[in-house]
């Protein structure tokens, strides 16, 4: 699953067209577009809206082990050595209001130049706002990183920023922004391919027949994802301590629980049983 975040609809437009994404009306708080494996969310400008949107989307997913998230957007550049319309992969995000830094793990073999980006709470119109920061500036990346890293590992997040101005942002129109992103679409598309091709580790499986025990208990008690993970760890420990999975676990599945609270009670007793062995 790939989630793409943009702040503005005009930034998203070329991606929506390229991947033929359709608006998903089941999302009511933000504009969300989907097709197959790709979901795109538009947050609105600023750190807070970004944090809320990314959190909103990630919190709705039941399994994030294979999820990847990409922020695409325009950014200002403090130096003219960074060309207008050039795309950078961000390797460090500095939150200028807290001083905190975020680091996506750059593990794909990409061919984009990399840069550091600082997020400000107001539009960076000249170097006096950017202070001594050298690199890229925006108003969202720190919010994106803070929210994404609450749910995902640093290897699951990527930020691609396209230089839209050299701290002289007032001349930018929505159409202009779309044009900038569209101009870099081949590079962004290539990046998306690389991200999608990156293999993430599968969630751990026990060797058979332990896995079969997990599967049966999961179905029998209709366990949540978190409960499955807990069960897996408990069984591993149990196996380590006693060399086998004790056989009487099936009695905890019968009769099938008729409510979530009964399921949870039964699950706790089952874990106690395994731990007691």
């Amino acid at each position, binding site marked *: 699953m790939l989630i793409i975040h943009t702040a503005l609809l005009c930034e998203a437009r070329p991606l929506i067209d390229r991947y033929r994404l359709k608006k998903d009306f089941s999302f009511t708080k933000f504009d969300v577009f989907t097709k197959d494996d790709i979901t795109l969310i538009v947050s609105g400008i600023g750190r807070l809206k970004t944090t809320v949107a990314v959190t909103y989307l990630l919190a709705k997913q039941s399994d994030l082990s294979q999820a990847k998230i990409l922020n695409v957007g325009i950014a200002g550049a403090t130096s003219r050595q960074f060309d207008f319309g050039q795309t950078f992969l961000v390797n*460090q995000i500095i939150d200028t209001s807290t001083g905190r830094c975020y680091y996506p793990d750059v593990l794909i073999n990409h061919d984009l130049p990399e840069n550091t980006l600082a997020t400000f709470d107001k539009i960076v119109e000249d170097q006096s706002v950017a202070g001594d920061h050298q690199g890229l500036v925006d108003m969202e990346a720190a919010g994106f990183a803070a929210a994404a890293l609450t749910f995902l590992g640093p290897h699951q997040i990527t930020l691609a920023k396209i230089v839209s101005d050299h701290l002289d942002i007032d001349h930018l129109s929505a159409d202009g922004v779309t044009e900038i992103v569209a101009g870099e679409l081949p590079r962004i598309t290539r990046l998306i391919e690389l991200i999608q091709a990156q293999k993430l580790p*599968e969630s751990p499986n026990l060797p058979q027949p332990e896995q079969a025990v997990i599967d049966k208990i999961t179905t029998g008690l209709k366990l949540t994802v978190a409960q499955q993970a807990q069960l897996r760890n408990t069984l591993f420990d149990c196996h380590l301590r006693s060399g086998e999975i004790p056989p009487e676990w099936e009695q905890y599945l019968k009769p099938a629980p008729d409510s979530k609270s009964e399921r949870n009670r039964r699950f706790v007793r089952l874990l106690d049983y395994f731990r007691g062995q």
Partner: protein
Amino acid sequence: MASNFGHIYLEEAAADYPLTAEICANFPAAQRINIRNYRHFFNRPNQDYNLQKGGLKLILAVKRDDLLYRGSPECQDFNSANFYYNTPLVNCVYDCEYCYLQGKYQSANLLVFVNQDDLMAAVTGQIPRRPEAERPLLLALSYDTDLLAIDNRIPIFKPWVEFARTAENLLVEIRTKSAAVAGLKSIASGKNILLSWTVSPQRIIDLIEHFTPALDRRIQAIGVAIEQGWQVRLSIDPVIHSEDWPQLYLAMIERLFTRLPASAIHDIQFGPFRINENYYRRLRRARPRSLILMQPLVVQDGIVSWPPAQQTELRKRISDQLSRYLPDEKIHPWQI
């Protein structure tokens, strides 16, 4: 090797050290990222150790505390109260599936401390304060890495050898699996430096010691080191359990001593796979399909290892085989 070091994360405080300049010069194409404190990068939550192994980053930092540690019970310390270790460099370019580093650290990235002089000063300061004055301070220099494996680009090995050679009452052990011994020629060996080579049967190397040199290349390297006057310890540790572990390991011992002069071996140590229980949990999560998890393992006093009966068998069979070549006082089995 897994390393490409396309990125160097440079801590502010490390910027002006000569070792920083030397290392950066060895990676001219690396992307340089200036960071305030290495911990902000190294200790991030939810990092994926195995994924990172496929694209290691280099972190250059200053070590401010814990310049020297007391040895832990899982280490092979010959019951010496004088046993210490330090971490001039953290993490390794090799990728052994049993490696405890993946349980110990959040990150697989290579963390190099550029203030090696401070680490040396800590050792110098501890020598007169060692618990057993009649024996030297025993320092394991590379428990958290393989210094020799990366010495051509991260030159830490040589300064430590030079430091150790002139120090009194100090015995330094440097563990390695490397075959890169060409550089040893330009360094004078020292009587108080032990190069400790870990050897494993080729099948184990193929299956779980990723990116490490083949057994024959290690044997060749050991031969070169011996010829150049280095003191060499052999380490068959950890022994990995499989149905035919005795055949694998006994045949390897025979191979070692047909190619190496037994009289030139300082000593040999061996022990079963063992790991702290908490580290084991993380290893299990990180490598759910590893051969390591297929061994018969039990927990005893917080350490996960072979069941006691099998440990006894291991001690007997390996000791018997080794005593065909070495006197008993040179054979050191690990025991809980």
